[in-house]
């Protein structure tokens, strides 16, 4: 056997370990989830039989599920809008700083991103405590005591509070992504714009925004899909309450599968969520591609290279 063929054969050997993991814990379970969502399988016994679309028909009539989807959508869309808009402006603000400040802000604002969501949740539950929490204490000490709330314990504020905590954690991430994209914009283009009399706002609107569409798309997709899948923050901050005001889909799936042991129902829920996330991703990509000038901006910069 010649050396080339030997290398190619060795390629399979090198792929074996990773393929073992992927096959056992990703590909197989994914296929099994899809198939089993058409059965009456539960966690109690090993036998099952096919029931056609029954689980999906039940799911369609399951008010709790669609209420949860609605909460997820609300959370995802509002978080994404705030984070993208704010993250963008902050990145522009950092971009206008001196080198040293740029480095400082990049590192400082990114700190919460590295912490586990559960740490953030426990921390903010303490800071948002009704009586002794930092937030209410600050409000009282500046004479705004009537604004003090039970935050995570009140129906009116629970979801908004989680959105705030989530934004607090990830604003640095969005900011850094945009900031990196802005640094990749060629200074020659900006200079020639200045020669033509463009001021800072012109540059922001006519150059920075269009030239970072790819990054905006990435941010939106990450934030929307993250919002649809969010679990730890909700589970530990509110546990889905008060009432069901913050009961998100992942929590519903968890309970259906592992406290009620209705595996088939949970799998149908997961499959529909998977499709919804896929659709949201495709829509974001489609809109992004429509406005993306980075693909063919005539300076030989490809989509990948610009980011």
């Amino acid at each position, binding site marked *: 056997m010649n050396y080339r063929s030997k290398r190619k054969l060795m*390629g399979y050997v090198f792929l074996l370990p990773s393929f073992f993991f992927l096959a056992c*814990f990703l590909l197989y379970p994914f296929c099994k989830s899809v198939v089993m969502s058409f059965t009456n399988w539960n966690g109690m016994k090993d036998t099952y039989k096919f029931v056609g679309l029954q689980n999906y028909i039940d799911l369609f009539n399951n008010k709790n599920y669609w209420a949860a989807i609605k909460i997820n959508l609300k959370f995802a869309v509002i978080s994404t809008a705030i984070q993208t808009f704010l993250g963008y402006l902050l990145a522009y603000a950092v971009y206008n*700083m001196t080198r040293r400040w740029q480095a400082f802000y990049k590192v400082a604002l990114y*700190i919460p991103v590295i912490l586990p969501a559960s740490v953030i949740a426990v921390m903010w539950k303490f800071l948002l405590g009704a009586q*002794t929490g930092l937030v209410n204490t600050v409000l009282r000490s500046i004479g705004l005591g009537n604004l003090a709330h039970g935050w995570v314990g009140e129906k009116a504020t629970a979801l908004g509070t989680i959105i705030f905590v989530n934004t607090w954690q990830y604003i640095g991430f969005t900011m850094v992504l945009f900031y990196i994209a802005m640094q990749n914009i060629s200074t020659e283009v900006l200079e020639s714009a200045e020669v033509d009399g463009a001021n800072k706002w012109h540059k922001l609107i006519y150059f920075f925004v269009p030239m970072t569409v790819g990054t905006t798309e990435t941010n939106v997709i990450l934030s929307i899909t993250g919002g649809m899948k969010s679990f730890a923050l909700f589970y530990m901050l509110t546990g889905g309450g008060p009432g069901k005001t913050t009961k998100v889909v992942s929590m519903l799936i968890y309970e259906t599968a592992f406290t009620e042991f209705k595996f088939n129902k949970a799998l149908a829920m997961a499959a529909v969520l998977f499709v919804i996330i896929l659709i949201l991703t495709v829509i974001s990509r489609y809109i992004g591609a429509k406005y993306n000038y980075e693909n063919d901006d005539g300076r030989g910069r490809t989509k990948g290279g610009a980011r």
Partner: protein
Amino acid sequence: MKPDRKKRYKSLPLMVLSQIVLIALAVLIIYPLFFVLMTSFKSNYDVLVNPFGIKTFQPENYVQAWRIGMIGKFFMNSVITTAITLAIQMVVIVMASYAFGKLKPWGSPVLEIVYMFGLFVTSEMITIPNFVTLKAWGLGGTRASLILPYVTNGLAMATFIMTAFVKSLPTELDEAAMIDGASILDNLIKITLPLMKPVIATVTIFNFQGVWSEFYWALIEVKKDALKTLPLGLMNFQSQYNSEYGILCAGLMIATLPVLLLYLRCSSYFIGGMTAGAVKG
């Protein structure tokens, strides 16, 4: 870069405005962390009567949190689980990316697409069968039941990032070594691996974040306190010390500080690792 520096700061009001906004935000982000750090050294009475200052100094909060609150146990569990996961992952991913990047077995473009499928799968779509599989293997609730799926979780993304890097490496060295009769394994270990150091660091940090923070799967699998990782253990800890603020904050600090210090020492790897994952995703 240099000559246009002056031009950048032409608009002074804009700069001042930017600076005010950014400082306010930095305070909003750093002060809560500082507040928790300060509270972690205070007695409960001091927390209640004197929220913004510190009059007592009670480092025993840390001892209490570490031993009786079991944060020490949870912390060590997280360290062990993460270390084993990352070690296995590294070997597996380096081999896979070397195969895709250099060896290119027949059909490797198709296989790469199969691997990339892993980027889209949501965790809810695999947890139930994984739970059943691991139970059938007699591993339910053990440390291995965390590690095996954790290795798989970061695999697709990491292989994707690393393969792109290996493909960008020059092939001349491999060919020269091949002529000299070096084996494929020699080639990987002596020639390619040393060049891969930066991407290995990036991928390790990226995977570290995923494993260290993981909560959902740990909640499903682990019931025994003795095996709980930090994110999961914090839940017990929180209910235990709900109104003993000093100890609660000490526990939070133990959970936060090691990662924070690591981050402050090599922040560029953290930011690079996370953003590399984001951009490719």
